């Protein structure tokens, strides 16, 4: 340090220079380096070895650099200069300030690598941001604290149908030209615009649906808008806000179309009474359509749908079957259409039919089931009824055919029996008892008479009309018949009678007598040689609204199984051995009851006996109705 460069001679100044973070050096008029601060010697990595050397010789690369030019200018013109440049020998950026001294210059220089790097990073960041701002397909609009638009990106202009200049000249994003409406289509006042709301409340406005009129497309577009207020440090009110928005028109139209399609499907399901459902095996979740809830009689809002809650609604007898169908689907087997009963909360038992299709992922693995559900309760009931009617019709046709056949056979048989019986009689009378021929002829006669009896039964079955109708008391016919029957029924069988005195009925007492004989005979045969009871009761009852006599004959015999019971009324159907019965008894009874406009019911269980209940309409009050005869013969 010399005074030749005019440096202050005091030591304090030197101390200050040594302690500064800048590098300092002093160069005299002869370009000799007179002083280098400690920091400068560290930065140049050469210590103070340059002191006393001529600058251009010690560091020749300085000469042509911006630094050299600045130093020469400061030295020559006596003005402060500055330079900034990359300095290759030290592989770093430096800036330098040269200040004229009376006999030289003082240079302050510093390594600015760090500053240069952050400047470059900032520039790159700004560049990226500008690029993003420019190319983003979401619209971005910046507003100042008054709501004026201060910047907008090209996407904003595109979405709103305005040029950037037009946008920037807009008062704010609540511009009336946009005819903004809210998500429900109601006019949106400027004060309610998301950007204005963000400014006034200081809170971010998220996911606001906004409809605006796009003048370029000449239609309304639907936007999803976020408005974010921005604050300066320490300030409570935003200094600006930016809105970020995207055009959701296509999505919104798709959503509306989807909603309409769903509503349409729901309506179609309601009309067809077909519900649908899905099971997702990945999480075990079930999903039902509205119609399925309706079929199950459930409230969608309160029913917690799950495999368990649904299974609990299935009729207990069908639950295993239902569960097996779901399990089959889970294993990848398409379940067949199944029908099962459900117990609805309102107490109704309904029958539903379910058809399934498996859902698979791209690899073909089963991931769920889609199913339709149909209420087939009425359908099945109607089918059952139709089948029953068909069966009844078939039965009636069979009976009718048998009747015709029986009538024809009876006529011919009766003619055939005339010579058999008559000649057997003649032969019997012409022979003496004890002669072999006499006994043979008696056998022929007996066989003939039995055949005659059989034919009479056939005719009774095929007969359509009643005999001479008359008013008579059923109880007296019953007593008379029972009196006669008691003699023929084994003593091990007890006949109990409980006969109420009821008004007379209109009909053929002979036929009713036959009814009683046939039924008691059947009962006695059903009881057989064992002890038993036949109970005969006569009471008042009704057929529909009309008063009727009810005759019930109940025995403690062997009873009938279902198959036998279902055929009990068929002519010639019998469970008795050959020669024991003709199979006509009950069908004759049925025919007589029907011709008296009565009803007949048979209840029977194997081993528990049989009960036959007959109802015959009571005669209308008044004198013998001659009209009744006429009516019948006109049938």
């Amino acid at each position: 340090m010399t005074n030749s460069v005019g440096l202050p001679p005091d030591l304090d100044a030197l101390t200050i220079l040594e302690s500064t973070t800048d590098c300092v050096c002093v160069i005299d008029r002869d370009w000799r380096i007179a002083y280098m601060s400690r920091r400068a010697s560290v930065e140049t990595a050469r210590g103070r070895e340059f002191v006393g050397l001529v600058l251009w010789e010690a560091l020749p690369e300085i000469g042509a650099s911006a630094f050299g030019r600045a130093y020469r200018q400061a030295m020559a013109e006596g003005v402060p200069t500055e330079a900034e440049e990359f300095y290759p020998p030290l592989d770093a950026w430096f800036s330098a300030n040269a200040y004229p001294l009376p006999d030289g210059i003082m240079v302050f220089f510093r390594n600015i690598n760090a500053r240069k790097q952050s400047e470059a990073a900032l520039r790159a960041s700004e560049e990226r941001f500008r690029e993003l701002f420019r190319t983003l397909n979401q619209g971005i609009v910046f507003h100042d604290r008054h709501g004026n638009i201060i910047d907008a990106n090209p996407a904003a202009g595109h979405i709103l149908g305005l040029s950037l200049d037009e946008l920037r000249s807009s008062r704010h994003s609540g511009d009336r030209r946009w005819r903004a409406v809210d998500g429900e289509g109601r006019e949106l006042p400027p004060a309610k615009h998301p950007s204005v709301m963000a400014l006034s409340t200081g809170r971010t406005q998220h996911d606001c649906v906004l409809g605006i009129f796009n003048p370029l497309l000449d239609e309304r577009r639907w936007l999803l808008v976020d408005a974010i207020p921005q604050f300066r440090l320490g300030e409570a009110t935003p200094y600006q806000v930016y809105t970020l928005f995207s055009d959701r028109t296509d999505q919104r139209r798709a959503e509306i179309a989807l909603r309409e399609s769903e509503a349409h499907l729901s309506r179609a399901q309601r009309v067809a009474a077909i519900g649908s459902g899905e099971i997702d095996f990945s999480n075990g979740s079930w999903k039902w359509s509205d119609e399925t809830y309706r079929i199950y009689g459930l409230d969608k809002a309160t029913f917690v749908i799950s495999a368990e809650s649904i299974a609990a609604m299935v009729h207990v007898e069908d639950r295993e079957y239902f569960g097996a169908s779901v399990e089959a689907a889970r294993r990848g087997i398409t379940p067949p259409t199944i029908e099962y009963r459900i117990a609805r909360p309102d107490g109704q038992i309904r029958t539903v039919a379910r058809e399934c299709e498996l859902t698979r992922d791209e690899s073909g693995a089963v991931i769920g089931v889609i199913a339709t559900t149909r209420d087939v309760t009425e359908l099945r009931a109607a089918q059952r009824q139709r089948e029953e009617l068909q069966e009844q019709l078939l039965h009636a046709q069979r009976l009718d055919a048998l009747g015709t056949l029986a009538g024809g056979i009876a006529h011919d048989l009766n003619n055939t029996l005339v010579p058999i019986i008559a000649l057997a009689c003649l032969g019997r009378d012409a022979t003496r008892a004890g002669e072999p021929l006499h006994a043979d002829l008696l056998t022929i006669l007996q066989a003939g008479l039995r055949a005659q009896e059989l034919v009479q039964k056939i005719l009774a079955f095929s007969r359509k009309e009643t005999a001479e109708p008359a008013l008579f008391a059923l109880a007296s016919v019953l007593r008379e018949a029972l009196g006669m029957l008691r003699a023929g029924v084994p003593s091990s069988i007890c006949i109990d009678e409980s006969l109420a005195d009821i008004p007379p009925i209109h009909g053929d007492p002979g036929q009713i007598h036959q009814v009683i004989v046939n039924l008691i005979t059947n009962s006695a045969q059903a009881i057989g040689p064992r002890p038993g009871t036949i109970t005969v009761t006569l009471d008042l009852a009704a057929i529909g609204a009309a008063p009727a006599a009810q005759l019930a004959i109940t025995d403690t015999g062997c009873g009938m199984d279902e198959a036998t019971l279902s055929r009990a009324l068929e002519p010639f159907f019998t469970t008795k051995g050959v020669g024991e019965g003709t199979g006509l008894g009950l069908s004759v009874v049925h025919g007589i009851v029907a011709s008296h406009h009565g009803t007949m019911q048979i209840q029977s269980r194997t081993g528990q006996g049989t009960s036959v209940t007959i109802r015959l309409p009571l005669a209308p009050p008044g004198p013998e109705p001659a009209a009744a005869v006429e009516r019948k013969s006109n049938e």
Partner: protein
Amino acid sequence: MNNPLVLVIEDDEVVRDLIKRLLEMADYRVVVAGNGREGLKQYRLTAPALVITDLIMPEREGIETIMELRKHGSNVRILAISGGGRIGNSDILRVARSLGADDILAKPFQPVDLIGKVQELLASPRE
């Protein structure tokens, strides 16, 4: 030959011959016809005291024969016999009685029943 003459109208030859034989055994004179048309002809030719007619026959039904006889004011005694048919034996015989038969007899019958009816009818002339 003062024994009464009986006309038997019956399509079944075996039955017809049998009735003839039973009547002859009981000393009645007998003429026979195989159907209603022939029966009416025989009636006009022979003027019998009693007509026994089957009810269900080809050519002319027995009931029609009875009505034809009564239409011409004949007071001949008529016994209707039948083996029945689709509508039942007792019914058709009842109808025959109401249309002019004096008595009825269901087939098959024993000789004693037939002869009994014939004797009864011939003993009580029609008023």
